[in-house]
């Protein structure tokens, strides 16, 4: 069977991201998964056990300052060379900012079609995408070149399938044109040890109804009790209650968790765009006519400052 290249997403703090495990699981349906690790020195070694656990038969590693010290372009050059050499059945990347950007450059370098925000990929290369804020389901195909797709987090359940990957170090030969955008600093702002927003199986979000930044502690508390990530509506972000990287909606992140809890969020179309493919939706809002209730599987009309602390207390009791 042909190789399927999976470009690994990982963080220093949490290691291999869940979307990578989803991609490896998907890749096993299409061929033999090979993981591609692009990062600083020693990156592949730190990740290889996890990648093997989910079926990576091979790991290609491109490591060092030439890869890690610049924005995206060197990574695309390395993957493009690898694609030309191994002629894979497909190339999978995460549908994250960086995953899409690497894929963008690959598409131009290889003059190859690209499909983003893919939630399923059949053996014949037909991809399923969700468009227009989750309102439309699209089946599409790359018609020039190999399937080059970016996979949206939480599209499938990752399943382990142990393999013992052989690691091949790639020779990195990037051009000067790849080194035009230099990363001079990386600053972490993520708070605590909560799961990453797009990958979390539970997301608890707060909106304008939360009232102020301090009150977001309530949202965080419920998120922590449920083992979830914290999100925020655009209204809450614009009002300065919570940082932008946690914004869920049309101009923020798209999430698709098992459980989405909306606190003090009216459910404007801008917000629904980012969360309406969630499996189960729960809402608390003082306005019984708020549109969020039209999509909530369970809604409580009332004062979130009474309901949320009570719910938190009840969860503690049950633990």
């Amino acid at each position, binding site marked *: 069977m042909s190789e399927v290249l999976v470009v690994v997403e990982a963080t220093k703090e949490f290691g291999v991201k869940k979307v990578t495990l989803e991609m490896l699981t998907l890749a096993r349906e299409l061929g033999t998964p090979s993981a591609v690790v692009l990062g600083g020195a020693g990156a592949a070694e730190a990740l290889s056990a996890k990648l093997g656990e989910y079926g990576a038969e091979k790991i290609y590693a491109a490591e060092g300052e030439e890869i890690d010290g610049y924005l995206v372009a060197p990574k*695309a050059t390395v993957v493009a060379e690898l694609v030309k050499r191994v002629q894979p059945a497909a190339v999978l990347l995460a549908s994250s900012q*960086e995953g899409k950007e690497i894929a*963008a450059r690959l598409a131009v370098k290889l003059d190859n079609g690209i*499909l983003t925000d893919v939630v399923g990929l059949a053996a014949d290369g037909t991809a399923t995408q969700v468009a227009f804020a989750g309102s439309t389901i699209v089946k599409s195909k790359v018609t*020039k070149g190999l399937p080059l797709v970016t996979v949206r987090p939480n599209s499938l359940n990752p399943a382990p399938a142990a393999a013992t990957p052989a690691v091949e170090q790639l020779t990195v030969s990037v051009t000067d044109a790849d080194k035009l955008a230099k990363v001079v600093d990386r600053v972490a702002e993520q708070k605590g040890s909560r799961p990453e927003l797009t990958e979390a199986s539970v997301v608890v979000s707060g909106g304008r109804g939360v009232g102020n930044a301090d009150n977001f502690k309530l949202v965080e508390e419920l998120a922590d009790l449920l083992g979830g990530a914290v999100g925020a509506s655009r209204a809450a972000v614009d009002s300065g209650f919570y940082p932008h990287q946690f914004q869920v909606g049309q101009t923020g992140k798209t999430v698709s968790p098992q459980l989405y809890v909306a606190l003090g969020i009216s459910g404007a*179309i801008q917000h629904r765009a980012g969360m309406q493919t969630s499996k189960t939706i729960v809402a608390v809002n003082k306005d019984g006519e708020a549109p969020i209730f039209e999509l909530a599987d369970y809604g*409580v009309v009332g004062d979130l400052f009474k309901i949320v602390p009570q719910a938190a207390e009840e969860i503690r009791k049950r633990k």
Partner: protein
Amino acid sequence: MNIVVLVKQVPDSGADRNLRSDDNTVDRGSANNVINEMDEYAIEEALKIKEAHGGEVTILTMGPDRATESIRKALSMGPDKAVHVVDDALHGSCAVATSKVLAAALGQLGADLVICGAESTDGRVQVMPHMIAERLGVAALTGARKLTVDGSALTVERQTEEGYEVVTASTPAVVSVWDTINEPRYPSFKGIMAAKKKPVQTLSLGDLGVAPAEVGFDGATSAVVEHSKRPPRSGGEKITDEGEGGVKLVEFLATEKFV
């Protein structure tokens, strides 16, 4: 500094949006078409740079005739002029082909700095800045929440999932911006009047030296096979809190095995 801002006309994301049943492209005919919201932040950033450092701001749009409305709207914020790439053969173009056309137009315009929104609200594909930079062989500083210009030196704070990265480059470059970067100005009455007289140059594929077979459906590198509307969600149980709302909420979560 010669700044070009990429502006895309998109169907209003606040209304129902559809794909056409005949050719599977975005239904623009029945939609209320507006400037891609994120592009207004790109325009604002370009105007701020011009105000601080001098230069000229040009709007570049690829789209059908009706995109003229969005171009005038963009010009009413303050840019100097616009270039509209319009050609019937462009209908059905994929992202790869679109980047080829935009790169050809940018090559003619000779921009020092290209600014665009981080993504459009219709496709949300997020690939255009890097595709264009790859074709032009210039730097791409993407996902900026802050941009600093010092002569030819550019520094951005790039929003990431963990926080941000500080990324530097020199012009010429492509910068894409998130909506946290600034607060776009509203067009003034004077601006709206002035926009009507600002030059809008139209360019065809022939003007750009791009063959019709390289774009549109003929040149597309991907295709929509079929599409369908997702059944809308329906609301479930809704209770009014009478003192036990929090407990009842947890009871629901427990039946769904989240607690």
